[in-house]
């Protein structure tokens, strides 16, 4: 009992830790003052202003498109890479992992400027260059999330499936893929996070007139971040939360219905 209480407390504290700044941001979105450190009363006007601000909305669209596309491409390439790397011998493995760590290791400004100098030679800066850059720094996160799952996997399972007559594709999709899927998803989520947060690399690889929320926010720091940004963040947060709840409740309700009808049939 004490142990359970302690566990709850621990999880609660971690969630408090992670969500406290988010709570601050949500409060700021209702602040009727342009300064983040002055409380000017309660307002919902920033929410209506978000939707009439075409610059913010287009930056939002670019941010989401970029984050999802780059994370998806990175997930595919990264997962395949992890499957391959898992089979490499020690030396090869170490070399590949060294290069994999480079985007994590280099300060953003180093990666950003280097990519810019490279892109300029064959590509006009625009959405494509942004996408290439984002995929580049996203892949390592996917690899690092998928590899441990592969390491943990019992090779015998896959072999057994093969022995029982499954071809390599079936064995992969029936055995390996479901096992590593949580890793792939973690990698995908981390990649989305990285992509949405990045400012420096985005700044150096974007074309004129293309904006993401991060580049807009950095531009606003000195004059004070526009409260619309807090409102937009809050909306985004609530939408995802809502999706999460729906995805949880709907299947549960369905299950209950099925059980209920099963009972009735019986």
């Amino acid at each position: 009992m004490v142990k359970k209480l302690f566990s709850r407390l621990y999880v609660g504290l971690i969630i408090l830790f992670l969500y406290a700044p988010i709570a601050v941001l949500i409060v700021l979105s209702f602040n009727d003052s342009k300064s983040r450190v002055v409380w000017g009363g309660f307002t919902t006007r920033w929410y209506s202003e978000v939707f009439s601000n075409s610059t913010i909305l287009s930056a939002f669209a670019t941010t989401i498109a970029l984050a999802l596309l780059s994370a998806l491409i990175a997930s595919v390439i990264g997962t395949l890479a992890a499957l391959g790397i898992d089979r490499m011998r020690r030396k090869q493995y170490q070399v590949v992992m060294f290069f994999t760590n480079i985007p994590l290791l280099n300060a953003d400004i180093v990666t950003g400027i280097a990519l810019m100098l490279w892109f300029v030679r064959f590509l006009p800066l625009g959405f494509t260059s942004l996408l290439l850059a984002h995929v580049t720094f996203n892949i390592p996160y996917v690899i690092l999330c998928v590899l441990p799952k592969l390491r943990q996997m019992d090779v015998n399972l896959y072999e057994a499936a093969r022995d029982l007559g499954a071809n390599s594709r079936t064995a992969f999709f029936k055995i390996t893929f479901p096992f590593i899927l949580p890793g792939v998803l973690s990698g995908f989520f981390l990649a989305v996070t990285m992509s949405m947060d990045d400012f420096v690399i985005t700044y150096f690889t974007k074309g004129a007139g293309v904006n993401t929320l991060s580049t807009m926010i950095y531009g606003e720091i000195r004059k004070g971040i526009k409260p619309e940004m807090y409102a937009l963040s809050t909306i985004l947060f609530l939408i995802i939360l809502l999706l999460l709840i729906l995805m949880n409740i709907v299947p549960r309700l369905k299950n209950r219905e099925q059980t209920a009808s099963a009972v009735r049939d019986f």
Partner: protein
Amino acid sequence: MNRKLLAAPYLVWVAGFIIIPLLFILGKALTTADGGFTLQNIAAIASPIHRKALLLSLQLALLCTVICVLLAYPLALIVRSSKLNQQSIVMFILILPMWMNFILRILALQMLLSNNGILNMILSRFSIAPLEIINTPAAIVFGMVYDFLPYMILPVMNSILSIDNNLIAAARDLGANGFHVFWKVIFPLSLPGVASGITMVFVPAMTAFVISDILGGGKIQLLGNVIEQEFSVSMDWNLGSGLSVALMLFILATSLLLGRGQNQSDRGRLLW
């Protein structure tokens, strides 16, 4: 089919978008402003100021990594023992805060921690002495842990949650007590996840600079700040690149040393 071939698209990507830009950096690192060859930019890491910044970065990044492991591991064990079947939901709850913009979160954290900040306001309600944490290395570590914790939680939790219950049951049948089950079964199987988490936390933490500027009040100079300063203020790309390359060599050497320390068995190796 040879499964190694699956890595081919990635290797192409590495060549095109990691190695070539890396050559640009190497080129800058090995030349002077006039284009002559030099090793000075890389050797500059040994100058007292840079060495101090490197050591401080190393200390703070290590501390941050250790705290992240210590926070994430019990969390993963708790989630495992609570038999939550909705693992993805737990994962989602932990990563959702990260989807608010980084700079907004760090500024919010600064508002929480500052001298007249929200945390101290709450503490004073309960007549507790105010925390003077802002603008200290402690604040930087706090911010780093806040920012990087999910990168530790996800891989650690992934590997701990997928340990087969039958293995643990078998260990118990064979007479292992709780501690033995943990030490002989859970711990070794969770290591690859922990290693990934360590990489994803420690390596980026070495070059963090926004956190030290905002939460450290610009009073504490980390290697990330120096590199960023060389590139964006002094516009000395040669020195900035040199320091970056030196840091790469440092990490490479560390990983090789760690790699040598391990046994040759294929499954047990750390990730770097």
